[in-house]
């Protein structure tokens, strides 16, 4: 488990008691720990000299509340990535959906004069002023997943690719159904009003267009198991025959699969989204309609840590010629199928 360099001075009896409680709570549902190799990068990435210990640095990290498996995994993997470096001390200001509080957390980091801040804002625009303040104070900010509205507010931005997710899913569906122009394609989206959902759907639609398919049935859920179940049950009622189904999110996918099971339907294949370990195990086992999932990496925070470290220790991305760390890193959204699931399952998140 992670051994954070937490200052143990706060060891008052009360906090000790809390810690015991917290540990008890952790061990009861600790996910089968499977991704200890985060520190060295994914299996594909070679372990470079950059991992050699450098100057001791302090990184502050703040993210929204872990009310979704993906978000929980962000914090987990970030902590793990930091723990793997003896030269990194991570200050975690944990999970809040209150921008006022998150601003205050970042202010604390600034007061503390940390060397870098990795920030996954609850609301990118709302966190921009305080990020600017940090940059003004000479602290590089690594913006993760939700973009600030001012490019000067971050030194590096690490983003997933929502449009790319849709494209990947669409392309996969095309590959499977390309020869059937009248195949029925369905889609279960996340929260419809979010730009990220709109981007994903747009990508999906565009990719399907290239092979002459279109979305016949579309419903939206809300990223929760319960919402997925409800949306899927309605969709299955509305569409008596389906050939392919894309579900944006594997967390809500648990509910979607339950609804499919209940309806006794198996005439179609399903593609997931985000890439939870659950979904990948299911793909590996091949025991359900879930054939593939499209990854929206939950390792963005971990990559943020790595980039922050390089930045502060003035190292370059070793495989690039450029001597500075790039301004923007956008992560790829690969399709995971039974054939390549082994490659990804270790970095997948537990929902």
């Amino acid at each position, binding site marked *: 488990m992670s051994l954070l360099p937490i200052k143990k*001075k*706060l060891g008052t009896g009360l906090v000790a008691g809390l810690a015991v409680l917290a540990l008890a709570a952790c061990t009861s549902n600790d996910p089968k720990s499977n991704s200890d190799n985060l520190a060295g990068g994914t299996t594909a990435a070679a372990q470079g000299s950059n991992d050699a210990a450098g100057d001791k640095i302090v990184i502050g990290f703040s993210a929204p509340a872990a009310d979704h498996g993906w978000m929980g995994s962000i914090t987990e993997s970030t902590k793990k990535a930091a723990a793997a470096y003896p030269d990194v001390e991570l200050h975690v200001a944990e999970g809040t959906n209150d921008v006022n509080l998150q*601003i*205050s957390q970042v202010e*604390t980091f600034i007061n503390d004069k940390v060397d870098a801040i990795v920030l996954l804002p609850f609301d990118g*625009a709302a966190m921009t002023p305080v990020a600017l303040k940090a940059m003004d104070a000479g602290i590089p900010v690594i913006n993760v997943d939700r973009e600030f509205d001012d490019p000067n507010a971050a030194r590096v931005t690490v983003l997933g690719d929502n449009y790319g997710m849709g494209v990947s899913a669409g392309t996969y569906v095309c590959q499977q159904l390309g020869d059937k122009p009248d195949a029925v394609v369905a889609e279960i989206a996340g929260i419809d009003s979010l730009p990220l959902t709109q981007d994903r759907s747009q990508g999906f639609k565009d990719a399907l267009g290239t092979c002459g398919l279109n979305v016949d049935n579309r419903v939206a859920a809300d990223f929760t198991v319960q919402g997925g179940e409800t949306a899927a049950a309605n969709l299955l009622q509305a569409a008596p025959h389906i050939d392919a189904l894309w579900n944006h999110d594997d967390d809500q996918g648990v509910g979607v699969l339950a609804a499919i099971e209940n309806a006794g339907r198996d005439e179609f294949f399903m593609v997931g989204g985000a890439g939870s370990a659950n979904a990948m195990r299911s793909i590996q086992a091949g025991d359900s309609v879930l054939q593939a999932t499209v990854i929206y990496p939950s390792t963005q925070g971990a990559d943020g840590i790595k980039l922050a470290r390089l930045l502060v220790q003035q190292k370059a991305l070793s495989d690039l010629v450029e001597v500075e760390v790039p301004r923007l890193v956008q992560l790829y959204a690969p399709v995971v199928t039974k054939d390549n699931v082994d490659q990804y399952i270790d970095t997948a998140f537990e929902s």
Partner: protein
Amino acid sequence: MSESVGGVSTPEGPTAGDGPTRDTERVERAAEETARDSGGALALLQTTAGRSLGLVVALILLCAVGMITAGDRFASYDNMMTILRLAATIGVVSIGMTFVITGGGIDLSVGAILALSSVWCTTLSTQTMAEDTHWSVMVVVALLVGAGCGLINGLLIAYGGVVPFIATLAMLASARGLAEIISNRRTQIVHVQAFKDSFNSEIFGIPLIVVIFVLVAAIGWVLLNRTTFGRRTLAVGGNPEAARLAGIHVKRHTVLLYVLLGLCCGIAALMLVSRTTTGSSTHGTLYELDAIAAVVIGGTLLSGGRGTIVGTVFGVLIFTTLTNVFTLNNRSISEQSLLKGLIIVAAVLLQQRLASRKGNT
């Protein structure tokens, strides 16, 4: 700190019957009264201070923990300002909430009103108007929206006969819904530079929003303790029927209380808008719980009739300092929430113990 609260010291002693008493007894009692009366003001001060004392001790303990665990990182000027900036928004809401709770009500919609105010004052049209005329247009809009929502709450409760819990629950849902509709669920960014500059300025090195918090607290204290409005609030909260029969416009007063809180939400919305340079329908989520918690641990009676602004300010500071100490020490939000819950329960149990002891004398 000579704040007088609604409740009054209850000196133990015989609840003297005024029946035929023998002269000696009467003389003795009179002497006792004189002795006690000379110390009346002092006794009042002592109990009020006594009530706040627990909070002071709690805050000092918390600061001690902060100093021990984080040293200068905690005890720096910058960190104090960080705590106060965090406290300012929720503090202004809590001060308004103190009035409503003292007046025998409750308001669950403060977070939603804050969100709606923040959204309304940052719409494109508001901002355009502000740029064309003056940035204070945004201030006026936020305050009007807050006060308007409070007015609706108050009218529903006082004249519609809807219980406060339900009326404000409805406002919670609909104000946030309206905020989402207006903003289209997008975060609205403030472009009016003059607004940002004004609100993010400092006065003698103290951030403006902290100054506003202090002002609101001071005005709130005076209003509750030194004006007819405050006295009537205590009466309406303590016994609405007796207040009505004493000739107080109870309904009108109730409306005013909710308008006042709505206004505070508008002020808090401006503070949050300036802090984030955005207006959003997600601003202020769950602030109602934070505000009620701060008010209650401060010593204001949830059933009304007794309220303390100083207590509320301490309540807010305790919670925000707790958050700060936990952040400085890398502790998780979950532990914080757990501790927060324990503090609330402890404070309320203590309050009830005091109340029951008072009832017995």
